[in-house]
């Protein structure tokens, strides 16, 4: 199922599952990721699943590329049915203080903001991966009419909780961070909680996420 395994530096395997971004390929990546987690292979010290790649880092004091490669080639991979998937609802407020790029998006996409919200809210999105910053989910796929490029000049600070769109993906900024996604709203929901060590991420690869529009009052009451 892995098309090719090569080395990324001297302490990681680069597993290539293909070049396209779709749910089918990504599900294979996630199955491998979860299977390796389950096997608890000695020496492996990190796994990074993404759209269509899986990077396996190992401790060079204990293992090397060849030994880990062999173990991965002989791995028992769990099947699709064994994949757990949570359904998660994320409340989003699109008040003008939060929807920083809605005007820009209206111009880029040539549709009204109501149409944008209609095509975004209530739709199911698949979580391909999490990362870049802690807990940030990469969700897809947006309809063609919602697909826009990143900002030409990225923001130095995107506020925490911002919900952004770019190309076929949506995400949530779990921390204030630099970033270039088109921001359409903000969620009061905690997406990443570092004090919950067993389960810090609300959204994990393979989960299904639906966004729901809330009012400003509901936004501020959510924190109470």
């Amino acid at each position, binding site marked *: 199922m892995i098309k090719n395994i090569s080395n*990324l*530096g001297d302490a990681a395997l680069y597993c290539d599952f293909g070049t396209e971004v779709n749910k089918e390929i990504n599900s294979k990546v996630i199955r491998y990721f979860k299977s390796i987690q389950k096997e608890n292979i000695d020496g492996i010290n990190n796994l*990074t699943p993404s759209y269509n790649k899986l990077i396996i880092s190992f401790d*060079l004091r204990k293992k090397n590329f060849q030994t880990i490669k062999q173990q991965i080639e002989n791995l028992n991979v769990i099947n699709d049915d064994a994949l757990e998937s949570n359904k998660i609802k994320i409340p989003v407020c699109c008040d003008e203080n939060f929807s920083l790029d809605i005007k820009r998006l209206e111009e880029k996409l040539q549709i009204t903001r109501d149409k944008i919200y209609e095509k975004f809210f209530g739709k199911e999105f698949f979580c391909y991966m999490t*990362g*870049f910053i*802690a807990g940030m989910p990469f969700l897809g796929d947006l309809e063609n009419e919602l697909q826009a490029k990143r900002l030409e000049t990225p923001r130095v600070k995107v506020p925490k909780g911002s919900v952004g769109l770019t190309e076929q993906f949506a995400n949530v900024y779990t921390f204030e961070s630099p970033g270039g996604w088109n921001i359409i709203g903000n969620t009061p929901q905690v997406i990443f909680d570092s004090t919950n060590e067993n389960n810090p991420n609300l959204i994990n690869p393979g989960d299904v996420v639906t966004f729901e529009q809330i009012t400003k009052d509901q936004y501020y009451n959510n924190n109470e």
Partner: protein
Amino acid sequence: MNKNYFEIKRAGINTTFQDQGRGNLYHIGIPFSGAMDNRNFQISNKLVGNKVNFPIIEFAYQGPLLKYFGENINFAVTGDVKFIIRKKNNAIEGTCYQSFTLENGDELDIISTNKSVYGYLAVSGEFDVNYQWSSCSVNTKANIGANNGKKIEDGQKIYILNINKNLSDKKLNYINTKIENIRVIQGTNFDYFSDEGKKIFFEKEFVISKLSDRMGMRLEGPKIENIVDTNIKSEGLLKGVIQVPADGNPIIMLSDHGTIGGYPKIGVVISADYDKLVQLTPGSKIKFKKVELADAETLFKLYDLETQNLISQI
């Protein structure tokens, strides 16, 4: 029982608690973090009689000025660092790779690193810090680790527990060597770059930019031309990965890097050279030398053996 603590009179520029870092969290977006220069981190602990992976204070460029209150304690500084111990009646210029004793009221003034970036301060006791995922390492971006995930600040107190009562002087004869040739393995997108670009990467000098920190090291120099695509579908990153964005200037991922990135990977710094790489200061020149995987594996074994040898000499 008396409390033993440092009062921070001056925090320094980038002073944080670190240890070996935390693994198995890339998939949720958390990098390893941990001491940038692993060898100097381990040596500092051994010089004060600790286990090598105890929490230490890492500083960059200007270090902290700490006033000590409590029973006698030993400390050691590693790296290439200028520091002074101020006692009631005199001041002593400190020496790296050697333990010293602090008495109640003494001040330790870590003035600066010399032509290097990071230095380490270990004490013969345990810093009273909180752990997340079994590590105290501070990641200021996600506010994870000791000190609420923040840098050490002016005026705060740092408590020390379980001071070792058997203070013995320890010393290591060691000088940090600098290297400017950094060895790399070709990256997974090496063929995204033109023949000329590849040649530039391995033959020309680059200068380390001021925009470098625990997350990454930016380089400036001749542009590396991309002939395929200046973006890739976002995928995992590792420390040591060298990405080249559209502007043609390489960026090397360091210990606090973002876990996912979408720029082509031209190369990866070998594990044996990472400790030396992070010590190169802005303005320094750097040159990449190509090595194969098998050589990189051998070079790491040698480097690790040398580190273990140094530790066992203490």
